[in-house]
């Protein structure tokens, strides 16, 4: 079937979605499913949770496309929705930890894909060390305040500008920089407590 939809900017595609064009929505999904999953996975990080939140994010975008303001940036809106869903999920997890009286609930082990990459290394001790470092970084990220972790992930892995992060978080750029500063310091402290230091 010829869809007749040409690739445009995110905002143009969303305007088409508002007009009832489903193919434009498919293009938006295809464009953003990978980056969104990456972002959500780094925040949570569980594959099943990340998968569900990505799906829910796109469904909310679809359901609320009529509310998208002209002149706004689509990616900002998408990240905001995903971030709120992640925060909700983390709150639910914390409630369950209290209810079940469990200790710290570590994120799942690094993904199967990464394990395959690690196992491909010739030296098993290198692979094991790498795996330990991965787990240490995950633990350290889990220890630092959520608002600092969010900024770290948006800046370090999504590579967004300070201005963009400020728009997503609805706070001044100076607040973003301040959270990043304290977040990097907190991360360093958390890693040091696990014996991880850069030589």
């Amino acid at each position, binding site marked *: *079937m010829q*869809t007749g939809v040409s690739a445009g900017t995110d905002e143009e595609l969303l305007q088409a*979605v508002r007009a*009832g064009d*489903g*193919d434009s*929505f*498919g293009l938006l*999904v295809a464009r953003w*499913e990978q980056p*969104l*999953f*990456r972002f959500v*996975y*780094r925040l949570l*990080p569980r*594959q099943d949770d990340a*998968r*569900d939140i*990505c*799906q*829910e994010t*796109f*469904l909310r975008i*679809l*359901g*609320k*496309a*009529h509310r998208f303001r002209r002149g706004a940036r689509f990616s900002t809106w998408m990240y905001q929705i995903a971030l709120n869903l992640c925060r909700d999920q983390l709150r639910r997890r914390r409630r369950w930890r209290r209810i079940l009286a469990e200790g710290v609930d570590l994120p799942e082990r*690094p*993904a*199967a*894909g*990464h394990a*395959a990459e690690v196992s491909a290394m010739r030296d098993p001790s290198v692979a094991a060390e*790498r795996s330990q*470092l*991965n*787990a*240490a*970084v*995950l633990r350290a*990220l889990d220890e630092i305040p959520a608002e600092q972790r969010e900024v*770290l992930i948006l*800046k*370090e892995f999504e590579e967004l*500008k*300070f201005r963009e992060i400020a728009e997503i978080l609805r706070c001044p750029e*100076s607040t973003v*920089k*301040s959270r*990043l*500063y304290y977040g*990097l*310091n907190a*991360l*360093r402290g958390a*890693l040091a407590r696990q014996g*991880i230091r*850069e030589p």
Partner: protein
Amino acid sequence: MPCNEWKDQWIAQLYGELDPAEGQLAERHLAACSACRRTLEELGSSRRILRECAPAVPAAPRVVMLRPRGHWRAGWAFASGLALGATALVAIALLAWGPARRGADEPPSPDWSRVEARLQQIELLVHEIETRPAASVQETGRQPLEPQLTRAQFNQELERISRRFDVERARDLETFWQSLMAAQVRADTRMDRTEQALTYLALRQDPRLRER
């Protein structure tokens, strides 16, 4: 400016977002202040560890939006679309992440490009059904999609799949089916049967499901 007021500049410098004028001021301060030089170095060190030692992110599952018919607004259609979409995503995730669980005697890896191409076709078909539900064969050049799936057939397929994949994936498929059933209680029967058929077809096209 006291050292504790430079943190914004150090962060901006670390990420290459310091403007030239601020950069010159910062360089002058760094040349004279060992404490700030150490601070900047420590920030850089944390960044390096984070970038180099953070675990890789697994490949993202393909998001197949099995959209409800008609309108885009929230309501019963959205609720059923949510259930269908989430469970379809489970199904697609199963297709995408199967190889990690394989043993030596399992079927060879499928041609994922063919599975992807089929999923694209199915998604376009869903869109077509949504927008032109009464279109004739002459207009569309396609045979209308007939619901193929019955519960008995799905159970058979589920049993066959569970023999080939591990228990967890078979359980995922059962969860997927139950979610479809739950959505059917609230949704339009005709739409739901078609969506089930389409999802079944997506599974069916996986070469691993073909009889040997």
